[in-house]
């Protein structure tokens, strides 16, 4: 499992260097992401608790079954959301490639992959904007739930409240991620990192972007699949 070949554990703590062998900023990014994981975790656990405490719940396959340019009676559950999921996975892959290109000091490759990542993020946000708009026109919003429970009984507004709050919080993270990536792109294009001699900043932005993808894995499963 461990890849330490030369470093003996005691030497890591003998002072003079980071026992974690990462740069300070990256370590702090990890801790920030850990705290953010607790925030998202708290939201999702609150959702789970409410769902466990409620007798009925709407069937996600009946609620999320449309896609852009579909007729009003479209019945295609899971289709649109799986496209969104793949967009995010692919944008995560291009981010890894950007980070690796940065380690090789390959500016052009960093630029190309960052642009692809930004496009992926923008595509995901567009999908989410469409979905929110669609649900809003079906009568769903915070405090309003037009959907019935799977067994045909009256549903509570908890369903829409949790859906909009949690996907909204995630969408806000995607939005900040896109902004951060745009800043990284500008800094790369203006040779900021070339002058510094390293692309470590891209690695930190990359960590954040992967975290956004990670959270979507959980949100997607909790809201659309189960």
């Amino acid at each position: 499992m461990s890849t330490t070949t030369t470093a003996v554990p005691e030497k890591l703590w003998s002072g003079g260097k980071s026992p974690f062998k990462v740069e300070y900023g990256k370590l702090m990014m990890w801790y920030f992401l850990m705290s953010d994981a607790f925030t998202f975790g708290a939201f999702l656990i609150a959702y789970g608790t409410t769902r466990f405490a409620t007798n009925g719940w709407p069937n996600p396959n009946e609620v999320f079954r449309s896609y852009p340019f579909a007729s009003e009676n479209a019945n295609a559950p899971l289709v649109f959301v799986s496209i969104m999921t793949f967009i995010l996975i692919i944008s995560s892959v291009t981010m890894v490639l950007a980070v690796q290109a940065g380690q090789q000091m390959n500016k052009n490759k960093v630029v190309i992959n960052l642009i692809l990542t930004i496009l992926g993020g923008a595509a995901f946000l567009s999908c989410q904007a469409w979905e929110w708009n669609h649900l809003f026109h079906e009568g769903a919003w915070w405090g309003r739930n037009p959907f019935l429970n799977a067994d045909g009984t009256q549903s509570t507004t908890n369903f829409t409240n949790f859906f909009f709050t949690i996907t909204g919080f995630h969408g806000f993270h995607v939005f900040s991620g896109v902004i951060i990536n745009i800043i990284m792109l500008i800094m790369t294009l203006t040779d900021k990192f070339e002058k510094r001699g390293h692309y470590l900043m891209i690695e930190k932005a990359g960590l954040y972007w992967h975290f956004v993808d990670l959270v979507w894995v959980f949100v997607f499963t909790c809201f659309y699949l189960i």
Partner: protein
Amino acid sequence: MEHTVDAEHHGGGTKEVIKVTIILSVLTVIELALGFAMMGMENGGLRLAIKGAIVILMLAKAFYIVGYFMHLKHEVKNLIMTIVVPLLLFVWFITAFLYEGNSFKHLKNTYDPYKKELSTKKAEKKEETKEIKAEEKKKAVE
């Protein structure tokens, strides 16, 4: 997990990225297939089992994203521990809160029959929303 020479130095390389991408895609496709299989299924043991399988696949995806894309698997053990050990609190959070939610439901259903009756009554919301929509359309026309 076997690691290549590449993985020992930088932990990565394009090969690993491609491999992880394929794994993530396959896991997602399996999740979706299970989601489709679950449709229209009655609430019961099998449905719960499929949900459990989906959760396990979700955790596997999380492992691949954090371990390889976020590179945590190739970091020093100290760093891995400071991130992973606090996250173990989630095990207790999830167990305790879901148990609590379930218990609340049972208590409510046992001691508040009115609420229970309400929650088993079929709703007629569908027509209502249609009326609202028709009204909105009228307004839009005006």
